[in-house]
């Protein structure tokens, strides 16, 4: 059966959660980078309830939650809805159980369409919930801004894989920044080149490219990225004179013209600069 319905990794990883990279469009252009930057901004993060329960909060109730060193404000969860109570026409309370834990949720409805959406969801329904994580009177709760029933149950599998993926991604980011290595753009790039896919249940996942406009309209292309990665290797960063075009050409086994094109593009983007002459280039430093 499964061969009829393969789990498409490309579409799987293009949807659901917003990656930190989306929230930091100006990473490359930023002239004063710091390791903590890019991990302190907001997005929609796929999480399990267990992760929410273990999120740390730095200060009082108003302070931010942190999961994996990343500030978390808005999250996306998938689970079963229970104990639904309509407290008033616009105030609906329920619990969401995702199998790792149970969390209280509130849905303030303001429009008829939202009321209808909540009307059709009963106890025991699988839902995808996007909402704001907050602490109220010592209890963690989600203030939902979207609750919709799951119709394609591969979304359940996908959500947890998405949680694992983002966890891994953030853990890597954290290690690399702490280690001072400059390989972050590789990770960012592999994400930002993800194509837009329409999933089988018909809703379109957001394109990362919308968020990288001030880097370039279509992000870094594969080869440009290879050249940049090579220049960003710590050993090459340390070289005062920079790296000769010929060397890049030999290392990447590509014609020098192709290297020149890539360099020209990267230079325009402010990612590399010529050092002692027009043949030697260095990557702009930054994490």
């Amino acid at each position, binding site marked *: *059966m*499964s061969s*009829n*319905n*393969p*789990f498409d990794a490309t579409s799987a990883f293009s949807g659901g959660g917003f990656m930190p990279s989306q929230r930091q469009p100006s990473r490359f252009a930023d002239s004063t980078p710091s390791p903590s930057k890019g991990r302190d901004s907001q997005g929609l993060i796929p999480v*399990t*309830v*267990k*992760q*929410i*329960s273990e999120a740390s909060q730095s200060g009082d109730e108003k302070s931010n939650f942190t999961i994996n060193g990343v500030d978390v404000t808005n999250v996306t969860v998938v689970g*079963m809805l229970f104990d639904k109570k309509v407290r008033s026409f616009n105030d609906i309370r329920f619990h969401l159980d995702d*199998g*790792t*834990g*149970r*969390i*209280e949720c509130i849905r303030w409805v303001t429009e008829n369409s939202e009321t209808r959406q909540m009307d059709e969801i009963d106890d*025991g329904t*699988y839902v995808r919930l996007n909402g704001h994580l907050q602490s109220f009177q010592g*209890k*963690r709760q989600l203030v939902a801004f979207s609750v919709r029933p799951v119709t*394609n*149950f*591969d979304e*359940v*599998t*996908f959500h*947890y*894989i998405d*949680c*694992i993926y983002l*966890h891994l991604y953030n853990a890597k980011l954290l290690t690399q920044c702490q280690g001072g290595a400059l390989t972050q753009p590789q990770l960012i790039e592999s994400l930002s080149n993800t194509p837009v896919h329409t999933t089988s249940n018909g809703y379109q996942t957001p394109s990362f490219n919308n968020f990288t406009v001030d880097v370039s309209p279509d992000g870094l292309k594969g080869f440009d990225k290879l050249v940049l990665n090579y220049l960003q290797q710590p050993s090459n960063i340390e070289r005062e004179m920079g790296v000769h075009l010929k060397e890049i050409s030999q290392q990447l086994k590509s014609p020098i013209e192709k290297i020149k094109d890539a360099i020209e593009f990267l230079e325009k983007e402010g990612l590399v600069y010529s050092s002692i002459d027009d043949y030697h280039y260095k990557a702009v430093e930054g994490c």
Partner: protein
Amino acid sequence: MDTSNPAAFVNGGLLRMHLGRKVRAVIQVIRSDVGSVIGKSTDDSQIIVKGSPPIPPTNYVEVIGVAETDNSIRAEIWTNFGDTFDMSSYDQLCQLANGEFKHLFL
């Protein structure tokens, strides 16, 4: 918030690790009776699920309940997962959720 009673993702092979505890599994229904379903787990072993299955069940059903033996589950919650479902991805998720990334789940 309550994380005291999680349901572990299981396939046929992982069931024995969670005997007496809450588990969740997706099974492909082979035969459905009034009080039980015989089905195939995501790793292709045969599982008996006791309880009250949905009428009618779809090809794929998710059950949440207690692991009774290494091939049976007493289910409390049944959800029809439809007639197509990617079993191999779910099976890999079971393995990840019981292995390297267990701390995100249990």
